[in-house]
Every structure is written in structure tokens, then in C-alpha cells.
């Protein structure tokens, strides 16, 4: 489904992604973790072409992201993305946030888009909050609206870029639960950048550990938490799991 091969990316002189390769099969849930500045967020933004990369190839469902003749908006409309800071549109209600791209990209009618939005709001546990503006919602609620907004496009895969990092602790679970349901019930293909190791253990098929732009470890979840092979992954795990 998602095939990342030997991707290199530089920000100026800074080599942010070093020969990164990941393969995500249909229905697989991959968690990407690692210290901050390790290139995880940059890598996931390369998958839907929000960040350009200089070398290597990324294909999603057979379409090459980096190829100059690729219709990026068309490709992105099939890949959902959820951001660390939610990025709801503050001048629109939750309903309008969820409907915008259905109307403008998919060409659905107002009533179709609304029906879909209501179904999704219900699904993420926010029925009845469609007329609220983002500023009237809690962080956890905003992130769930953002997930509903991405799902409204009927994506074939979902990318999550640290979806709970900006949330107060008591709101983290409500977001993780929605993501877990998505993986279990829908069999959604998911690539999740997160530090939530509990979520990784419960939901992920594979865990990828990145450090300084390199993929240091790519292991099945059980193997990763059992005996990570690299020292760096062990050190990272010991730091974040000791609490």
C-alpha cells in the first residue's frame, strides 16, 4: 500500500532522512517512534507529498508521490492525515470542517456531505456538536473532529503525525480509542507517529524506531517490545517506559 524506498532528504545542509525504507501492507498498522528531531514527522509528511524529498521513491497504492506528473491533490484526497495541532479550520464549524473537502474535492451534494459528517461525528463520539466552532471544543474533541474530517474522504490509508502530543493527559485516551477502533473494526491501513507505547503494543503490527534520520529498527511489535536489537532503541524505550 505504502512503499518508501531509499528516501533521502536534506533541509539545506542538514540530512534529515537517511536512506529510509518502509513498506506498509494493506490493513497494517505501523507505529513510528523515536526521539524528537529524528525525522519521523518529516518522513510521514513525505508520504502524502507535503514535504518534498530529493532522493528515493515513495509510492502509495502504486502512485509515485515524488514523480513530477503525479496529481498530488488527487492522491492526497485518498490519504487521510491527522496533525499534532489538529489544524481544524477555526473560521468554520465542526460540520463545515468535515464537509469542505467532500463538497470541493469529491463533489458531493450538501445533504450527502452532511449525512456523512453526522455519521462520522456520531462515530467519534461527538454527535450533536456539529455546530460548534473549534475554539468551543476541547483538544480531544478537536482531534476527533479532525479524524472525522479525514475519514469523510473515505481514505485508503491514514497518516497520524503525533496525534496526542498536544493533548492534556486526560484527553489522550479518547483519541487513541477512536484510532484503535479504526484499526480493529475497519482494518484501516495506518502509519502513526507517536510516543504512546501502550497504543503501539496494543494496536500496531510493526514498530519502527528512528534516530537521527535513520530507520534503526523495523520489527514486529512483540519483538520490538521483547528484545529490541539496537542499543539506541533500548535506550529510548528505557527512557519512555520507566514511568
Amino acid at each position, binding site marked *: 500500500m505504502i512503499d518508501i524506498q531509499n528516501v533521502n532528504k536534506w533541509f539545506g545542509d542538514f540530512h534529515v532522512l537517511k536512506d529510509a525504507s518502509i513498506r506498509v501492507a494493506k490493513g497494517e498498522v505501523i507505529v513510528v517512534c523515536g526521539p524528537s528531531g529524528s525525522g519521523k514527522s518529516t518522513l510521514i509528511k513525505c508520504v502524502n507529498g*507535503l514535504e518534498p524529498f530529493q532522493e528515493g521513491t515513495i509510492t502509495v497504492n502504486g502512485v509515485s508521490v515524488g514523480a513530477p506528473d503525479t496529481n*498530488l*491533490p488527487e492522491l492526497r484526497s485518498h490519504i487521510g492525515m491527522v*496533525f499534532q495541532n489538529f*489544524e481544524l*479550520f477555526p473560521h468554520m464549524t465542526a460540520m463545515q470542517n468535515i464537509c469542505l473537502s467532500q463538497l470541493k474535492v469529491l463533489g458531493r451534494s450538501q445533504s450527502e456531505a452532511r449525512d456523512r459528517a453526522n455519521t462520522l461525528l456520531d462515530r467519534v463520539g461527538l454527535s450533536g456538536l456539529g455546530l460548534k466552532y473549534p475554539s468551543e471544543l476541547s483538544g480531544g474533541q478537536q482531534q476527533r473532529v479532525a479524524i472525522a474530517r479525514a475519514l469523510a474522504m473515505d481514505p485508503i490509508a491514514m497518516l497520524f503525525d503525533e496525534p496526542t502530543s498536544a493533548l492534556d493527559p486526560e484527553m489522550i485516551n479518547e483519541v487513541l480509542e477512536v484510532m484503535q477502533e479504526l484499526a480493529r473494526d475497519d482494518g484501516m491501513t495506518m502509519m502513526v507517529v507517536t510516543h504512546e507505547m501502550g497504543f503501539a503494543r496494543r494496536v500496531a503490527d510493526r514498530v519502527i524506531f528512528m534516530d537521527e534520520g535513520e530507520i534503526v529498527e523495523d520489527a514486529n511489535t512483540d519483538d520490538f517490545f521483547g528484545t529490541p536489537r539496537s542499543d539506541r532503541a533500548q535506550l529510548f524505550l528505557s527512557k519512555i517506559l520507566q514511568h
Partner: protein
Amino acid sequence: MLTDFDFGVIARNIPYLWEGMQLSLLLTGLSAAGSIVLGTILALMRLSGIALLQWIGAVWVNFFRSLPLLLVIFWFYFLVPVLVQQQVDAFQSALIGFVLFEAAYYCEIMRSGILSISRGQAWAGYALGLRYSQTMRYIVLPQAFRNMLPILLTQTIILFQDTSLVFVVGLADFMTSAVNVAQRDSRLIEIYVFAAFVYFVMCYFGSLYVKHLQQKMHR
């Protein structure tokens, strides 16, 4: 001395002055609308990342911001008829001059407005499959416009004052009408005091409203 003043001249000429004021307001409204649209296009050009468009935008802004408005008004009054090879009335030539000139200022306001919107907002739009133009139109520009509304209105108040410069091409705005009455009836002091009072009240209360709006937005 004070008994020599005849403030009745104002009352007698209100209908004529009101016609002038209507022209001032019309010119302000049309110029503001036109130059905000053109200024936004210039701002998008300056931020486009395409060298040629950036260059055109930058030259436009620097060119018009380096010229006195009075000169621009004169310029278009004499230039436009030559360019289109027919008579152009003073209102149209003034309007064109104002739009092109003020666009340089509105451009810089809209540019900082667009830059005030976080990159993540555009990313969210692109990630949903929206094109650049759609992302700008539905996500970035509405927010930029709203953030910049107080400054856009302040610039429009300045524009309203500047429309008085059309006096030099004989266009009968409020200022020109006031001058005409003052000279015809030899009541210079009364009329100029009145004109100053009208401009002051309108612009002062206009800027009070902007301040109020700003406070409301920051709440």
C-alpha cells in the same frame, strides 16, 4: 468680528455638499474594493515562490510606494485618455489611479495577513486534497482577511482622506464641492471649518470603531 461670520452658508449648501460627499464615499468604496482584490493578488504573487511573479509584485509595490499619490492622480488623468484614445472622465481615471496605487499598500497588509496563518493550516487543506487555489480561497485568505480587518479598515480611512486629492483634476468630491462653495460665496473660513469638522468626525469615529473591533477580536 465673530458677527461677520455667516454659518447659514453651510445650511444653504448642504444638498450640494452632500452630492460631493456621495462621490467621495463612492470613490472610496470602489477604490478600496478594487485595490483590496488587486492587493491580494499581488500579495499572492509575492508569496508564490515563482521568481517572475515575485519580481512583478515587488516592483509594483516599491514603484507605487515611492510616488506621491497626487502625481499618480495627475498621471492617470492625462495618461489614460492617451492610452485608450478617447475621452475618459475624471472619476474613472481617478478610480484607476487609486486602485493601482492603494493596491501596493493593501498588498503588504494582506501579505503579512497570509504569513500570520500557520503553515499547518495550508497543510491541512492540501492533505484533504484541496488545490492551492482552493486552500487559499477557503482556508488561508478568509483567516488572513479577518486577522487584518482592523488594519484594512484603517488603510481605508486613510484612503477616504486621500480622495480629497481629486481636487486637482476638478472632480466634484466633498472637498472640491466645499472649495467651490467657499469661493463662490466668499465664505472661506466657515466652509473650511465645516469641511474639517466633517472629515474629522467621520475619520475619528471610524478609527474608534476599528479600535472597538480590534478589542472584540482579541477577546
